[in-house]
């Protein structure tokens, strides 16, 4: 991990939260290199004991502007709770988006992203 080019930006949060280091590292690289988000920054979520990644994701439909997304990594083996979700939204503060993404990482490097919105939000058609 230390030899990887992305490591320098992540050192602080990787060492602060060793239990989520694997998922955090995996998600950061996926978001920057595979999903190709731009304007990427890392955010500290102490209540959730991990770092999160914020960036601009280009829209799937042509003509639409890119949207700011926050993704919180976690491992498939972890146990979460709704108060964990609440804490993530709370820490993101007043300008938090209405929805966060959770990146669920498996040990074989598979990642799946799910969108969690606050409140009762109808599905997009």
């Amino acid at each position: 991990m230390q030899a990887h080019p992305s490591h320098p930006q992540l050192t602080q949060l990787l060492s602060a939260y060793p239990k989520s280091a694997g998922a955090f590292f995996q998600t950061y690289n996926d978001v920057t290199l595979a999903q190709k988000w731009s304007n990427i920054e890392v955010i500290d979520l102490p209540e959730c004991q991990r770092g999160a990644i914020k960036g601009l994701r280009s829209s799937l439909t042509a003509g639409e502007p890119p949207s700011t997304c926050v993704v919180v990594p976690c491992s498939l083996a972890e146990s979460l709770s709704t108060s964990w979700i609440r804490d993530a939204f709370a820490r993101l503060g007043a300008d938090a988006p209405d929805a966060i993404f959770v990146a669920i990482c498996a040990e074989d490097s598979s990642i799946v992203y799910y969108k969690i919105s606050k409140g009762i939000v109808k599905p997009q058609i």
Partner: protein
Amino acid sequence: MSSGNPIPLRVSNKQASVWDIDDIAKLRSHHHICGVLAGTLPHLSQQNVFLGVPLLLMPEEVVLLVEKKLAVLVDDTNAHRDPTPTALSRWDSERLRGVERQLALAEEHDAKEALNPDRAMSEKAIRKRKEREEKRAHGKSTTTDTSQEIPEEDPSLFAPTNHDLPGFDSHPKSSGAPSSHTSGVTAPPQTSTLPYTIQVPGASSTFEWYDHSAHSFATLAAAREAGVWDYPTTPAERARCGVFQDLWEQGYFMGGGIKFGGEYLVYPGDPLRYHSHFVANVIESPEAALRPMEIIAHGRLGTGTKKSHLLCEWDDDKKSVTYYSIEWAGFG
């Protein structure tokens, strides 16, 4: 919305049911509680897509209705008293009078046919008969045996040609519910050669010896003390009641979620008119364990069926519900 009297919910073995059609309609249209019909329809007994009374309610629906003073619980077993001999003889003579009325009507019909024997052979009758036979040939695979046995030429059968008896539809494909409170069964005649229908009321409230006023409970506590009802008991059950009530207060209709892998289906309006937008799961407390695999399974199933999955967290200390909607992100 008129309130009127609270609706009696008949409780037997901790299961609540509704047997009166008007109450079922009121529950749906005034209180947006749908329930599930669980009874066999006498005219369509060999299928279970269309069912009739009784309406069964979820325990959360019962709790909500009683707490909002919209319904009362009736100890159904004890409300059925033993009839007195006079009440029983009154019921029996009423029943015999009903049979006599039917036979009189049938004889009147016979007399009319006898006066006008050529009526069956008139041009109009021949044409109608032909049309009916053609229709029957088309719908042969879906008709039941009894409806095939209604030939126009035999007036002695109880179900004669359409026009004389009100409410009877001789079209073989009719699937409407029978008139409220009755189910028909043809039985062999006793004194005359004409058959008659035995009518069995769907609701016991029509019987003189059914007394629900002495066995009603207007609060859950009273019902619990009498051993008639005890939901909710556990924290999980309290959470379900809390979430159900919160969704109901927002105007949603709820149904069972088994077909979509959740606890409830949440509809924006009557399920007969809308598809549900949400599949809801109850999270017992803010600290209850939530596994990432559940998020994946619920989220992907919801998105795959054009719905969102709702995680409904119940906080038993604050007595409040927090909602999170889960969807597949669509990338990654």
